[in-house]
């Protein structure tokens, strides 16, 4: 059994669907942060069989985790301070996501305009439906 030590301050992202941890790493742009990140893949889970876990040692105000709700709202976020879990963060669907998904509508201006960000707005919270800012196509 592989052992990864405790972190002093930061987040533990648990119950990530097995194999998805690198996607989350990319979406949170963890590669750009000067912090310690542990990526645990295919950990045993009673609930899920297999799961991924991300441990991020950083200032807890440094990361915007709202995008996680869009990617997978089953992920649990444990907030760590002084080596202890101090909070379990509820994931809230972000009102807007930028460059997380791409607009698939071939008629959308995002398909040709240089360096135009792919922005989606939350159109229906209940249905978790996002629409492209420019063409209103479903995300």
């Amino acid at each position, binding site marked *: 059994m592989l052992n990864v030590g405790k972190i002093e301050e930061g987040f533990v992202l648990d119950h990530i669907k097995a194999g998805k941890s690198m996607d989350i790493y990319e979406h949170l742009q963890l590669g750009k942060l000067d912090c310690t990140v542990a990526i645990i893949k295919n950990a045993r889970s009673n609930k899920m069989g297999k799961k991924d876990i991300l441990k991020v040692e950083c200032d807890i105000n440094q990361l915007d985790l709202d995008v996680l709700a869009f990617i997978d709202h089953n992920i649990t976020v444990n907030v760590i301070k002084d080596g202890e879990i101090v909070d379990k963060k509820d994931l809230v669907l972000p009102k807007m996501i930028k460059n997380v998904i791409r607009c698939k509508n071939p*008629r*959308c*201006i995002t398909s*040709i*305009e*240089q360096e*135009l960000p792919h922005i989606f707005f939350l159109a229906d919270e209940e249905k978790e439906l996002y629409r492209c800012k420019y063409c209103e*196509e479903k995300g």
Partner: protein
Amino acid sequence: MKHLMSPLDFSVEELEKLFTLARDIEKNPAKYAHACDGRILATCFYEPSTRTRLSFESAMLRLGGEVLGFSEAASSSAAKGESVSDTIRIISCYSDICAMRHPKEGAPMVAAEKSGIPVINAGDGGHQHPTQTLTDLLTISTLKGHLDNLTIGLCGDLKFGRTVHSLINALVRYPRIRFVFISPEELRVPDYITDALKEKGIPYEEVIRLENVMPSLDLLYMTRVQKERFFNEEDYVRLKDFYILDTAKMELARPDMLVLHPLPRVNEISVEVDADPRAAYFKQAQYGVYVRMALILTLLEISAA
């Protein structure tokens, strides 16, 4: 600075002000003949649309302003690969207001984000065509006298027809509106529109045969099956003649039912219907100029009084 991307950019009250201004322009054209002296409208049309472009140009010329622009992407710097963002920055240096048509959906919004002048969406792909909607609303409110309590039939291409989508979005803001969607299965109104209607509790029905619903309509909005919206020629040929409005069908309609059409028509309304007093589509084109005049004045914040 205000732009027009969608008919919903204006509140119902702002629309009423716009329509009042448009009706005043109709009655007193001389009062507005020099309202835009020294102002320039740029018509940036990345795809051909003679009718909309000429309507905008006529509107500006009737206000005493001047017009410049291009009428297809090939004759603009887009052919050299220039982005919409760059083009509008340049156009902002040359003119006071811009009407943009683009085959890509959302292109006028990109322009508005970077523009130093008001931008009017003159049609973006299959998405929005707000000035057509303003034209439709002005026509209905002037000829019917009100925009509420109407049963509105929309017929033809309800899937790709942006004029239809824009009109529905605008009309749902008025009380006691009922819709009848008349289309072949392949060209049904998109789910997101019917979902929104359900959510708002606005009654609608979807039918295939026009004849059956004619007697119930206060207004029939005909549309053309547009070749440019199809990727596949076969589908276009199969569906283009699905609905043709003729005098026999008009006999089924109420004596005060109006027929509207965004034009150009191909053959979906027989020429013989033109003589029917209920055929309002040519008047609609005239109202299109008045409402664009009112829009230009409003966005440029010019008062002719």
